[in-house]
């Protein structure tokens, strides 16, 4: 099994879920994070003091899938969230050993 993590722009979340729903993804998780990268932050002012915000709000979408599905999903993500501007984000793929569905106790692919 593989873990696909996509760091994306928040306003693309809906697009992405629509797309993944369309290709029949059975489950995923969303986490709110702050990202540091080539996309620079911006400056705010508060009571006469200007300060730089170097982190940007990002969404991490995490999906555990059969390794055979990775390519299709990665392609779908790219399609759904790409704008071509700096800050579009990354996809990371890593290994997962096992998955267990708590409700039924099923393990492995059956648990997804």
């Amino acid at each position, binding site marked *: 099994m593989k873990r696909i993590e996509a760091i994306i722009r928040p306003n693309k979340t809906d697009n992405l879920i629509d797309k993944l729903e369309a290709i029949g993804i059975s489950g995923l998780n969303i986490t709110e994070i702050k990202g540091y990268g080539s996309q620079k932050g911006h400056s*705010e002012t508060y009571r006469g003091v200007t300060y730089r915000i170097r982190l940007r709000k990002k969404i991490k979408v995490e999906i555990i899938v059969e390794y055979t599905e990775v390519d299709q999903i990665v392609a779908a993500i790219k399609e759904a969230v790409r704008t071509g501007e700096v800050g579009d984000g990354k996809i990371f793929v890593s290994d997962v050993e096992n998955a267990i569905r708590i409700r039924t106790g099923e393990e492995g692919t059956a648990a997804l």
Partner: protein
Amino acid sequence: MSSRVIKSKFMQTILMTLTLVGLFSGLALAQDGQAAANAVAIDTIWTLIAAFLVFFMQAGFAMVEAGFTRAKNAGNIIMKNMMDFASGSLVFWAVGFAFMFGSGNSFIGSTGYFLQDAFANLGLDIPIAAFFIFQTVFAATAATIVSGAMAERTNFSGYLAYSVVITAFIYPVVGHWIWGGGWLAEMGLVDFAGSTVVHSVGGWAALAGAIVLGPRIGKYNEDGSANALPGHNLLMAALGVFILWFGWFGFNPGSTVAGTDLSIASIAVTTNLAAAAGAVMAMIVSWIKYGKADVSMTLNGALAGLVGITAGTAAVGNLSAVIIGGLAGIIVIYAVEFFDKLQIDDPVGAVSVHGVCGAFGTIAVGFFATEGGLLFGGGISLLITQIIGVAAVFVWAFGLGFALFKVIDAVIGLRVSEEDEIEGLDYSEHGADSYPDFMVNVKAEN
């Protein structure tokens, strides 16, 4: 006894009597003076306290609008509400009040800029300053209504420009027509506390603004259906509604500008009953329509009832007030849906609450007024006058508002860029973050 003596005695008596009467009258007048002065003082403190309550409605409007919109724009909403009152106070002092209450023709007043006039034409006993502050907070109310309908996408400079013009000109002219002795006043239009003068003017200008601006990004789908962009803080919105309701007790009963006019009591009662009925009916209808009692619609329902009763609050009975308020509470729901169907995006329902229910309330006077209302045997003439007033004000406020927003759009730009809108106006317009300590959902769930 000689007749001379009798005459003399008679004369004496008469003289003395006259003297005494004179003396008495003099003292009595002095007396009268204190009592009359007291009456003026009573009217003055009543007017002032009412003005303070109406001022506080600014906080209510700010909380309702902020609560019904997204966290990323809260600071911008604060700024708009603060600045339309602040700049409005200045321009209304400079010219607005003169346009509205100065002597002039039946279209506009033209004396007393910067309050440099006694305004004897108003025939007031209370100090002109008391009347002026009361009118200032009213003017600011009309201006701030518009803010809600244009929330979350309006360029701040553009908003400021608009807000100066409405308080300086658009509102005062209507005010002159109806309250300043203008042509609608002459026709006998009844708009006691301003369903039309204040609320409809704000509401129709808001409609123009919402149309010129276009809907927020993501509000409508390609198939024409609407998405919810839920407000970020219903508790603040509710606080705002409570504050507005509270302030309305200054708005309506205060509009007597006289505490010695004891109808202030029954006005307070009709105001409260209409608001209550509006909230109850909006809750019931939303429950039936959506399966659950809708919070934001119920809050709007209370406001709708208040706006609806404002014209007739001194002219209708309690039962009529309940009916008017209840109907307004129903109407507001259908109005919100109606504008959504037209894809006119009004984040807080300002057009429905203030424009539509203001018009409804004004026309309702034609039916329900105990004196002159159709249902109470008064014939149709008042009703016709009310309808003419509503129509004329619609044409004026919507027309001028539309033109104004188009001009601002061309000159300054009325709408922020797409990127800024997505990022939120707090950052793009003010370089600020209203809730830096809280985690804010980066994408509302859907």
